[in-house]
């Protein structure tokens, strides 16, 4: 495999609602800042790939306006996935493996505040048999959490501990939306939002964007003293039907983690995209990351979840831990679909 590294990452300040900026306006400074920081012009970039969803914008071809944020002139070699930007980064990595590109720009963006997100997400479900019942995203996750609790996979305190940890870590993240010091006892005294999920178990609704620069081979040194090399990269999807899979574990994460080689060596840092606290536990277990691993130093998705950018940001945050020397080996995870249906694992190393 060709050596490819994450060398640059920018993100917007994640917020509950961007009142006065549309997606293009959120994205534009993120991309421009990154290009400036990396001292890159469009003409230096061989391939651009983005991730977003028309349904968040309520408009067909919503991603087309992203080209305005890129300033795609002269014309650019570019593609788009209707997925989180983490999968756009995967597509760019593939293009770099085939020698098509040496430098790639990847971005993801989402502005879910324009709609009713939990119900918008219901439109991802089987339109013939499930979607007409309008099961919202929080209720779907609650079903999964209930199965785990009833099966003694973990308890509600373990879920609250995830929120305490992530919100505490987020205090060091200037881009986070939710942060602070909390006690598990106090969180557990709060009422249920959708039983057994309390508010702290759920990621916030967030608007935001992020962008990453990938560089291959010999040119990496021009951009970064301590690049975050991609040493393993895999993604796996499960059937969507809830009855067709064991919701008390994340089998696709386990397969992806195994294929990406997560367990080959010590993992210093893991950035996990878990929209709900209990899903963080399931992903941690599927990845096999233990007590020696710092989980979600950025605060993860519970601190801010600009969907379609959240997974990409996990890769950026994990890379940042390699750049600053905190981690020699970091794992980034992204998810999509109801109850952890699709999962991506990226292993980053400093050497």
């Amino acid at each position, binding site marked *: *495999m*060709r050596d490819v590294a994450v060398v640059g990452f920018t993100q917007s300040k994640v917020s509950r609602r961007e009142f006065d900026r549309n997606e293009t306006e959120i994205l534009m400074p993120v991309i421009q800042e990154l290009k400036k920081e990396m001292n890159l012009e469009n003409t230096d970039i061989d391939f651009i790939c983005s991730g977003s*969803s*028309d*349904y968040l914008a*309520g*408009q*067909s*071809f919503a*991603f*087309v*306006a992203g*080209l*305005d944020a890129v300033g*795609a*002139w*002269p*014309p*650019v*070699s*570019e*593609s*788009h*996935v*209707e*997925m989180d930007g983490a*999968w756009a980064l*995967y*597509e760019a990595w*593939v*293009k770099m*493996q*085939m*020698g*098509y590109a040496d430098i790639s720009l990847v971005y993801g963006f989402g502005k879910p505040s324009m709609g009713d997100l939990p119900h*918008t*997400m219901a*439109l*991802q*479900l089987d*339109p*013939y048999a*499930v*979607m007409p019942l309008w099961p919202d995203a929080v209720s779907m996750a609650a079903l999964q959490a209930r199965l785990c609790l009833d099966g003694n996979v973990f308890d509600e305190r373990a879920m609250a501990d995830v929120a305490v940890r992530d919100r505490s870590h987020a205090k060091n993240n200037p881009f986070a939306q939710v942060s602070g010091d909390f006690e598990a006892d106090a969180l557990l005294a709060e009422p249920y939002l959708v039983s057994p999920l309390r508010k702290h178990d759920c990621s916030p609704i967030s608007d935001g964007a992020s962008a990453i620069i990938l560089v291959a081979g010999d040119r990496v040194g021009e951009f970064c003293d301590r690049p975050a090399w991609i040493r393993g990269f*895999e*993604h*796996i*999807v*499960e*059937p*969507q*039907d809830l009855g*067709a899979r064991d919701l008390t574990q994340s089998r*696709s994460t386990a*397969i992806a983690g195994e294929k990406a080689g997560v367990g080959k060596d010590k993992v210093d840092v893991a950035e996990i995209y878990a929209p709900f606290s209990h899903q963080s536990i399931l992903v941690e277990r599927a990845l096999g990351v233990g007590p020696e691993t710092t989980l979600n130093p950025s605060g993860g998705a519970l601190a801010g979840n600009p969907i379609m950018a959240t997974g990409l940001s996990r890769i950026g945050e994990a890379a940042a831990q390699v750049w600053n020397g905190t981690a020699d080996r970091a794992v980034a995870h992204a998810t*999509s*679909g*109801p109850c952890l*249906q*699709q999962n991506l694992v990226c292993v980053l190393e400093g050497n």
Partner: protein
Amino acid sequence: MAERCGVVGIGQTNYEASRVDLSMAGILREAAQRALDDAELTWKDIDAVVIGKAPDMFEGVMMPELFLADAVGGAYKPMLRVHTAGSVGGSTGIVGASLVQSGVHDRVLAVAFEKQSESNAMWALTVSMPFSVAVVAGAGGFFAPLIRGYMRRSGAPEDTGIRVALKDRLNALKNPYAHVKMEDVSFELISDSPMLWDPVRYLETCPSSDGACAMIFANEKLASKAPTRPAWVHATEMRSEPTAFSGRDQVMPQATLDNAAALYKKAGITNPRQELDCAEIYVPFSWFEPMWLEGMRITDINEGWKMTYEGATALDGDFPINMSGGVLSSNPIGASGLIRFAESALQVRGQAGDHQVDGAKKALGHAYGGGSQYFSTWIVGSEKP
């Protein structure tokens, strides 16, 4: 550096206005199963799946690949969902091929679909957004002024579009999968059909179709053992530019010209008209045949209509275009680009049946989308690159 990649299986559904007999999953499976049969493979032989389709609002399902994952054999495998506007079918083929060319996978299934009968594409494309004028004219209303611009610049005869439509509709009669088949089609029938978006008449316009197209890509080792001669991928290329800005040439966008130049360079082609045997080009409205013949640098600027007018683009001409009947005859939008790519591969595999171009060795597949701003193209050949 890239691994060689061959198309070893091609499958298409029958295209119809409404496949009431099939769900979305059924449509994908019909195409994918036919591709597997063509390649003499089973679902287990596939390493990864790429799904492409145009806007999710066409079916009213957000990221439908998630609920379709197991129907296309994606369960517990890698699956990607591509969306690059109307060019998405082409982009889906390019991503599928790249997964093999990169050495990441050995065998990949790419499948693109649209089930347009689930909604009304024209309205799905013209939702009303804050602070922007809703055009409420669909794609035809958007492209008609660009066609007028081309007519003015090129001085092409007014009936050029009718001739394109007649040729494509005659070709469709030879394609068992085509949606619109008009046994009685004639120049007069087309010219007398209602004017929808001046200068585009009803019979110069693409239909709304249900359908899917699937392709299986394999690396050199596996493709060389395929039961039917593979179509080798010689080059792929994509270009995009913004929808609108001062000075943008929307009639002949820079992105198509740049894309063509880069594609031919990669494929080692210096004279496409001589070196290519035929092309499947994305022509949703008749006039885009001469426009993209120029945009793909097959002929000089403002000269494309002459190829149409002289019959060069007919099935028995010296540069056949849209042998399958093209987008004018079958248009499940998300699949339309991959169908173009598939037809080019069928030609160089000698599998195109009644619309086969004799001895085709090298063919162009082309798709475009958005406001004439996304371009996905490839060149396939009967010989290894």
